[in-house]
């Protein structure tokens, strides 16, 4: 399959690293508004051609799959142009600025018989997959509630809160935090299904160019409830996922490899906290070592989920099987994202 990328920045390099190792995938071209960025990516990843005009690339290269990895405010137009050119589209999160745009993309993809995949990479991290495996095997019992909280310092002078060059995400309702809503919403959707209603709190605690730096939400969904949160002030950086089941509870830090389970055990009740604690301690020690080894041994690191999403998407496109992130799931997640955005944002 012939792949091409629009946008050759940081996340694009993760896509390219993955694509280089996928059998049957040829990266034919890369495009970026900056000629240096495009040429550098082409040189570094031995891509035969580079462009600064995505329409020229679509016309001349005729890719089978386009990865849209530009800043998110440009996604809609680029994804739509790519669909119209006959390509399947893998778009980085957040796919669009509004649900209406996402809906328009999904409809067009359906009409043209093309795939539209939004990257929910944390659904495919090892920890998430292991929890899901236990849920699907029945070991976990029904999921009652899921909590997902990202603590990430985005208040520093570079990146989201750069006072010199406004980050593209500041154009979104919710500002920089909107960039993380797809992670939170996709995890809620995975474990408790499509949402019915959501209550949110958006707050600004620190001085910065960001409109908000704290976010909380309680979500009522078809199969359970979810509590979602983002904090720019809580440290250390972490992505906590806690899944509460009828017979088991799981806790994972998706920025690392930490994953622990508490479960109902046979035997006397007073011994259960001790056994759960011992097992938890063992898991944490193993995970701490695993995280360190992961850093030293290379590989995708926290992008392991992205590598799986891409590998499975290409596999599905090749053999016609169900996509790892089907269109229905993208719609459901984006409906929740729209409900999570600040009130009055019109999004």
């Amino acid at each position, binding site marked *: 399959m012939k792949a091409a990328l629009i946008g050759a920045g*940081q996340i694009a390099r993760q896509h390219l690293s993955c694509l280089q190792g996928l059998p049957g995938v040829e990266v034919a071209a890369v495009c970026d508004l*900056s*000629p240096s*960025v495009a040429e*550098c990516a082409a040189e*570094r990843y031995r891509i035969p051609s580079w462009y600064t005009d995505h329409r020229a690339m679509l016309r001349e290269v005729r890719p089978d799959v386009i990865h849209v990895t530009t800043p998110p405010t440009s996604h809609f137009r680029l994804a739509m142009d790519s669909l119209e050119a006959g390509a399947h589209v893998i778009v980085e999160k957040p796919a669009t600025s509004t649900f209406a745009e996402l809906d328009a993309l999904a409809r067009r993809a359906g009409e043209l018989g093309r795939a539209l995949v939004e990257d929910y990479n944390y659904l495919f991290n090892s920890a998430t997959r292991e929890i899901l495996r236990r849920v699907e095997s029945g070991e976990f019992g029904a999921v009652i509630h899921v909590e997902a909280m990202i603590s990430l310092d985005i208040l520093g002078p570079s*990146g989201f809160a750069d006072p*010199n*060059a406004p980050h593209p995400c500041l154009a979104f309702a919710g500002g920089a935090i909107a960039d993380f809503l797809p992670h939170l919403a996709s995890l809620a959707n995975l474990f408790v299904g499509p949402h019915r209603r959501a209550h949110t709190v958006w707050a600004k605690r620190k001085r910065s160019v960001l409109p908000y730096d704290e976010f909380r939400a309680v979500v009522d969904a078809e199969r359970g409830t979810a509590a979602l949160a983002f904090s720019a002030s809580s440290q250390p950086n972490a992505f906590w996922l806690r899944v509460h089941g009828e017979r088991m509870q799981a806790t994972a830090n998706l920025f690392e490899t930490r994953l622990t389970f508490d479960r109902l055990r046979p035997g006397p009740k007073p011994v259960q906290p001790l056994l759960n604690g011992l097992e938890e301690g063992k898991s944490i020690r193993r995970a701490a070592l695993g995280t360190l080894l992961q850093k030293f041994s290379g590989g995708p*690191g926290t992008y392991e989920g992205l590598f799986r999403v891409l590998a499975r998407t290409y596999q599905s496109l090749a053999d016609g099987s169900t996509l790892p992130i089907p269109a229905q799931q993208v719609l459901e997640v984006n409906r929740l994202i729209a409900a999570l955005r600040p009130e009055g944002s019109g999004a």
Partner: protein
Amino acid sequence: MKMLVTGANGFLGRHVLSALLARGHLVRALVRPAARVDDLGWPDSVDLFRADLRSTRELKPAFDGVDVLVHLAASVTGGEDAQFAATVVGTERLLGAMARTSCRRMVLASSFSVYDWSSIRGTLDESSPIEPVPALYARDGYSIAKSWQERVTRRFGEKHGWDLTVLRPGFIWGRDHAGIAALGQQLGRIQLVIGPFTHIPLTHVENCADLFALAAEDPRARGLTFNVVDGEGERIWRFAGQYLRGTSERRIRIPIPYHLAYWLVRLAFATVFRRNLKLPGLLIPNRFEARLKPLRYTNRRAREVLGWKPPLEFRECLSRTFGAAPATVPSLELAKKTG
């Protein structure tokens, strides 16, 4: 002459601005929109132009009336892509604007990091090879960005027939910036000094700034590349000692032979670490060499072509760096007197 100085409030930029003023030039200082310049003591004659090279829509007005661009702006912090955007994309946008003006002369601050440290033996000078592809992409984000910045600048220069001078400084040091990478690795109270007898390609920030100012005004510099070092450079062991004394930091220096450390790093990189490029720089062989390889350095070209001599002796550099802080940048005082 009127000079446009980018990165004018940076560590090197502040001294270049002062050196240009001292030589009687008019200066327009390009600084980022949120940069604080009030406490830099700049005279009113400095024309301030606030812009971010990555995002300011129109950069052409920065060149109004400008004879020479002295382009120092580059990112030294942040991730690889952030550095590339700030350093390379910023340069691309700046020079794109310059191409629409009558300004035809520029001086670029490049870096020793563009050289191919693995292949160079003996003396590193302006004729030494630069890092080739694909080895470049095993280097750190700063080296990749500076290599691309020089590449982009040379292309613009050739395309538009500009008079380009490229200056490649070694380790620029000075007050609050003496903890250079060549000092080795700190492990708590221990300072591992790798290759203690190796010379460091040092240039004190005021000496470095003096050569920038000279190159900007001297027509003999046109079309040439100059390495910027103050001389053959102090040995690492001695400089580490001076650094620790100057900063009153209590660390025990432990010498490690360069070749022993280098071959251990190479062996570990190829086996245990499986060529992982996300490791700390000291564990990646070509980054290790770029910091610590024992080579000789010379400023012969600057001396012979421009008659340059570093204005400050090493002893003066030490006292400027570690002695009592002056009220203002020393050369700015001179600029105010002569101006």
